[in-house]
């Protein structure tokens, strides 16, 4: 099967405009007859469900949490990018497009990324109109800050709770449609399979997590907005419930998986404190606007950070990357932290951490504040106190979170941070219209692979989720469904629904019948360790081959020895989790296969065999300028399809932030 990305012809900056003006439409009377299933209610899902409901489609939305407002987009901290150029610092649609392509290490599709940059400005307008309380300047206009991999200030934010505010905006729009009867909401429901009829996605099998019953739902189209799969590593910054199940079921039903090995390891997270650790907490990238990252110049230096004088500190990002300094992209910052710790310069009790220090920023802000107040001869302590207030206003909630988790006061001592799994650039392969290789099955937001290449820039995930949901799918869905208006709703006693439900039910019964000795949690931890050690920040052929064998063995163990308490037909979180871990056990293997196949280093994918003398990622554009799209052919069998990437505008070059 040849992959067709369906990028419209024409000049890059005219493609989307032309598409919108010429795509097929569905008239209002017909929209009322068309049923759309939206799975997941994060930024992509909630914005899609609300927008499609407003347009007149009959929408059913599903989430596994108790309310759509809980989806993990809520936890995004730092901000959302948009090429508004409100700061008059030279930003433009082209620059956002270029930064995103370069940030992704030239492994993203130009057409999609340009569209993303174009609609970025509409997102801010839409959110402000909904009443999203973004940070503002004293003049009443919107405030911006910087994020990694850019030299302009284009990030809009609401303290360290930008994801929360954006999601609440989308959630409110969604609840409005629920109240109007345009969207039916199914909370505490998990999608467990896609139903295909005549080759097209025509519905889902969902499990009601409260009573355990399986339900059949018809839809003319199915939208998966189910987020990323970082929890395959067990420890990540994802929510505990974040999972790959919906996407993986779709993959097994024919949707190709794009670039599964492209994982983002975020440089600034609170380090692991022990074996009990259930998740890792991010400290927003926005902190790198003001925090300076350093380790001692001496190996194994056990002095307290305050006792290490300035000249004995190695601000290694500023040293290695003077042009971008502490604001290099995430993949670069993460590898640099790992390099220092592996070389024996790490700090804290585990020695697997580096410092993120705000002392300089506190003093700088204190002086500015003192000048503003006309107090030029203030003593140092008073200046510091003023500076702390400024830092508190900018990052207060993050500092509080750090203090609660670690018991240390980050206003007084530098934060200790270390990289952690955060986001997955890979996901279901989609074309320009966000359709997967299964007709009428779409993937939006983090669940698809499309816009971030091998590394996502900070504050771009929120942008992509809302772009897909508010501004892309309303057009592309109509273009497809215009040909489907004669398709009547298919009754759910159709043999395809019965067969799909039986498949789901058989699997659940099989899981419950194992009655082994080891808990689901324990299997998940074991999988996470394999993935982190061998398919994490550094990867090599030997380790990946071992990992594949280990995962296959672990999967066997799981299916013969997992213990799931309770019953099928009741509220049973252990059973829910078992299904998700079973899917991670398959995905993990595919990630390693993909990482093994890609014999180059790019973005977050660092193959140790392929690096420059200075330890930078070494891309191989001759051989690997393609998207890896994997087709499921049976257990442990995947066929690789390649979508060649053609760069019309940007000329791929060595990615330098020096």
């Amino acid at each position: 099967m040849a992959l067709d990305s369906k990028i419209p012809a024409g000049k890059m900056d005219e493609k989307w405009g032309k598409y919108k003006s010429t795509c097929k439409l569905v008239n209002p009377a017909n929209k009322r007859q068309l049923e759309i299933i939206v799975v997941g209610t994060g930024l992509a899902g909630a914005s899609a469900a609300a927008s499609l409901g407003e347009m007149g489609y009959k929408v059913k939305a599903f989430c596994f949490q108790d309310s759509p407002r809980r989806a993990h987009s809520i936890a995004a901290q730092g901000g959302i990018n948009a090429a508004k150029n409100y700061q008059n610092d030279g930003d433009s649609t082209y620059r956002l497009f270029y930064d995103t392509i370069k940030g992704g290490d030239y492994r993203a599709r130009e057409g999609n990324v340009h569209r993303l940059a174009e609609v970025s400005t509409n997102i801010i307008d839409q959110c402000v109109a909904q009443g999203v309380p973004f940070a503002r300047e004293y003049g009443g206009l919107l405030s911006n800050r910087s994020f990694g991999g850019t030299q302009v200030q284009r990030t809009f934010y609401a303290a360290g709770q930008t994801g929360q505010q954006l999601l609440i905006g989308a959630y409110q729009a969604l609840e409005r449609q629920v109240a109007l009867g345009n969207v039916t909401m199914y909370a505490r429901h998990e999608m467990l399979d896609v139903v295909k009829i005549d080759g097209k996605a025509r519905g889902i099998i969902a499990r009601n997590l409260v009573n355990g019953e399986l339900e059949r739902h018809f839809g003319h189209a199915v939208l998966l907005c189910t987020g990323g799969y970082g929890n395959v590593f067990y420890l990540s910054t994802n929510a505990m419930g974040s999972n790959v199940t919906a996407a993986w079921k779709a993959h097994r039903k024919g949707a190709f998986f794009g670039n599964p090995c492209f994982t983002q390891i975020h440089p600034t997270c609170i380090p692991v404190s022990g074996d009990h650790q259930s998740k890792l907490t991010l400290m927003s990238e926005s902190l790198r606007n003001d925090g300076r990252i350093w380790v001692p110049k001496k190996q194994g230096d056990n002095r307290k950070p305050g006792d290490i004088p300035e000249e004995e500190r190695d601000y290694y990002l500023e040293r290695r990357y003077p042009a971008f300094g502490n604001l290099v992209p995430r993949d670069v910052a993460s590898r640099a932290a790992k390099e220092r710790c592996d070389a024996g310069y790490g700090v804290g009790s585990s020695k697997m951490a580096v410092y993120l220090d705000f002392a300089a920023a506190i003093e700088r802000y204190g002086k500015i504040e003192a000048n503003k107040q006309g107090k030029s001869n203030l003593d140092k302590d008073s200046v510091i106190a003023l500076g702390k207030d400024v830092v508190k206003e900018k990052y207060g909630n993050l500092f509080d979170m750090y203090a609660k988790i670690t018991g240390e006061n980050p206003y007084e001592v530098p934060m200790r941070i270390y990289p952690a799994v955060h986001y997955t650039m890979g996901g279901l392969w989609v074309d320009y219209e966000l359709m997967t290789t299964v007709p009428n099955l779409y993937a939006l937001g983090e669940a698809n692979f499309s816009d971030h290449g091998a590394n996502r820039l900070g504050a771009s995930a929120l942008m992509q989720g809302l772009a897909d949901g508010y501004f892309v799918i309303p057009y592309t869905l109509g273009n497809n469904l215009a040909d489907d208006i004669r398709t009547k709703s298919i009754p759910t006693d159709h043999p395809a629904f019965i067969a799909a439900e039986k498949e789901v039910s058989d699997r659940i019964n099989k899981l419950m019948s194992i009655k082994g000795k080891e808990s689901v949690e324990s299997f998940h931890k074991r999988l996470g360790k394999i993935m982190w050690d061998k398919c994490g920040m550094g990867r090599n052929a030997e380790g990946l081959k071992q990992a594949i064998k280990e995962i296959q063995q672990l999967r066997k163990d799981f299916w013969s020895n997992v213990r799931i308490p309770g019953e099928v037909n009741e509220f049973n979180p252990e059973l829910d989790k078992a299904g998700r871990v079973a899917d991670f056990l398959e995905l993990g293997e595919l990630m390693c296969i993909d990482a093994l196949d890609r014999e180059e280093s790019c973005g977050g994918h660092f193959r140790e065999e392929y690096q420059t003398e200075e330890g930078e990622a070494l891309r191989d554009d001759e051989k690997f300028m393609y998207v890896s799209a994997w087709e499921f052919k049976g257990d442990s069998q995947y066929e690789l399809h390649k979508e060649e990437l053609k760069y019309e505008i940007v000329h791929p070059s060595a990615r330098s932030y020096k």
Partner: protein
Amino acid sequence: MQHYNMNLTLKVWRQRSNKVKGHFESFQVKNISSEMSFLEMFDVLNEQLVAEGKDPIAFDHDCREGICGMCSMYINGRAHGPWTQNTTCQLHMREYKDGDTIVVEPWRAESFPVIRDLVVDRSAFDRIIGAGGYVSVNTGNAVDANSLPIEKQKADEAFAAASCIGCGACVAACPNASAMLFVSAKIAHLALLPQGEPERKNRAVNMIQQMDTEGFGSCTNIGACEAECPKGISLENIARLNREYVGAIFSGSNNG
């Protein structure tokens, strides 16, 4: 910070479903690290129960970083436990010492029926938002974001109200099981902004009507909601809600 391990007695509410009566059950947990979060301590207990062939304790949780609003334990008589402006998932075990007994219950309110053990149904909150907690603006109609300057102080106040995570601690803490803090936070968020102005009156009336329909109790100015709110939502929002409501009723909303 000095780390230590502890053994604890837990008295936890067990209730198989909303159709049967619940009861307290006692458990012993050993070697709990002071560095664990409260929910990680529950993970340890649940692993222990699974190993013993028993049913683990059902509890709601998701982000474990204090923002999704899903965790909901009532710990030793306090919603989200003893720390101020904190969620259960962010409570850490250094709060406790060896030998302590901890009592854990679900949110208790008629409008939040128990689903299982510590898990309750908070969908009433979604319906209250659906009754008016939004600005009616369809996708694609917005003007340039900077065409509408908003006084920084107002924007900051609106943000403070909008930072509510919808966890329901306010209801659980209130002896009347009133949802006034939750409702007022949304009404204040949107009333403070010019975008919320056109629907201001109907919003107040409709949201309060829905709140009553859901069976939440009345506000008698006790203030437990504010004291237990993990996000520090202020009682001033309730005062604003009352002004909004009275204003809407007397000046005539479409429904009022």
